[in-house]
């Protein structure tokens, strides 16, 4: 069963992040946008961590995070944003939605993996 859900509309990023996590022994599932991510989280409430882009079609990542808390009532899953966005206002909105961390793209796997392992342990 997957431990981590990677939500990104870019197949390149899904491949990059997914391959890296799998090579570090983590089980990974994928969603192609916020709406798909919300659906996957609803179907599998045991997911421990979500790595999510902000700018996506259909539903952006911050809206998805807000809905995870408000609609799914899931307060246990850790959500980390992986995005090109770096504005303080967006980070504040993320914090208000209960997001646990923020990574500015491009993804630097080795620098992130230790923190992720602690989160999903």
């Amino acid at each position, binding site marked *: 069963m997957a431990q981590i859900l990677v939500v990104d509309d*870019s197949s*390149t990023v899904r491949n990059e992040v997914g391959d890296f996590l799998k090579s570090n022994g983590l089980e990974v599932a994928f969603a192609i946008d916020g709406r798909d991510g919300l659906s996957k989280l609803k179907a599998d409430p045991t997911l421990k961590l979500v790595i999510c882009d902000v700018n996506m079609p259909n539903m952006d990542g911050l809206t998805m995070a807000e809905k995870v808390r408000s609609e799914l009532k899931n307060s246990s899953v850790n959500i980390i944003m992986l995005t090109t966005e770096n504005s303080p206002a967006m980070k504040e909105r993320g914090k208000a939605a209960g997001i646990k961390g923020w990574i*500015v793209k491009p993804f630097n796997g080795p620098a992130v993996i230790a923190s992720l392992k602690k989160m999903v342990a």
Partner: protein
Amino acid sequence: MTEAATVISKVLVLDSDPDCQHALKDFCASHSLSPLRVNRGNLLAVLRSNVDLGAILIAERIGDDAQAGIELGRQVHQLRPELPIFLRREQLDGLDDLALADRSAFMAGYTLGHIARLESVIQDSIFCQYYPNALVRGITEITQTALRSQFQGLDLHIDTPYIVRDRLLYGEIFTLIPIESPWCRGYMSLQAIEANLQQLVKAEHTHISADDGDDFRNLNGLLGEITNLIWGAFKNRYGRLESSGPLLAQVPIIINHLHRYISFGSTDPQLCFRCTLTNPANPDMTPIVIYQRFIFNLSWRPEDFMENQASVENLVSTGELELF
């Protein structure tokens, strides 16, 4: 105001007079122009294939034909009306003696004795946009970071940026994304050849599985992600700190597939970067070129150029997890 960046522009030169060729070469060297010699037989073919031109210099007399340059100018103007054409004349400076229809095809006429007069008209028509050096340097850094994050095991070289006036699309894959800051509004595009990207995927230089290289959607996605990375970094470094105003102008973008032509509704020259990827472990690999263009057609106020210092400092931690 910050120092202006050094940018060049490629110009086609059709002039069979050896003395003039030398003079034009010297003129180009001292005015940031990169001359590309063509002849009467290949001019139109070169024009159809070349995507990064700033202007064309044509001699009125070509061989024994005293007015061949005027006829060629008409044809060039019809084919590529966005390119300024400068006519070198034998006797008279200017274009006043030409028929009105011919005059409209040329930006200016000059004689070799007064070639210095070309300087101001070149400045007005090609180098009329001022590009701060810090912006050009910043774009180069941002682009390098984005490309290096998506291509492994390759060397990357970004040429001196250049100015183009043409509107032709290069390659087969083309991305376009709005670019906005308090001092600029417009678009950035990346252009590449699909087979070249596919070659890199199959050789495992990207994050895409080699087996997925046959699906063009994955190649689209690769160029799209590079575009996204550059857009995000540009926004973080130069973007608005406060929300934007209530009404921002837009103009239609026109794409003509038949002529591989795109118009942003502005005649302003575009700032271009040519990024070349090579494989140090395989010198026989054809260099892969990605063209990057910035078109500041909606707003351009370089006098207000500034970087977000906090964002520049934050770039140091790009890719790492910031825990809340």
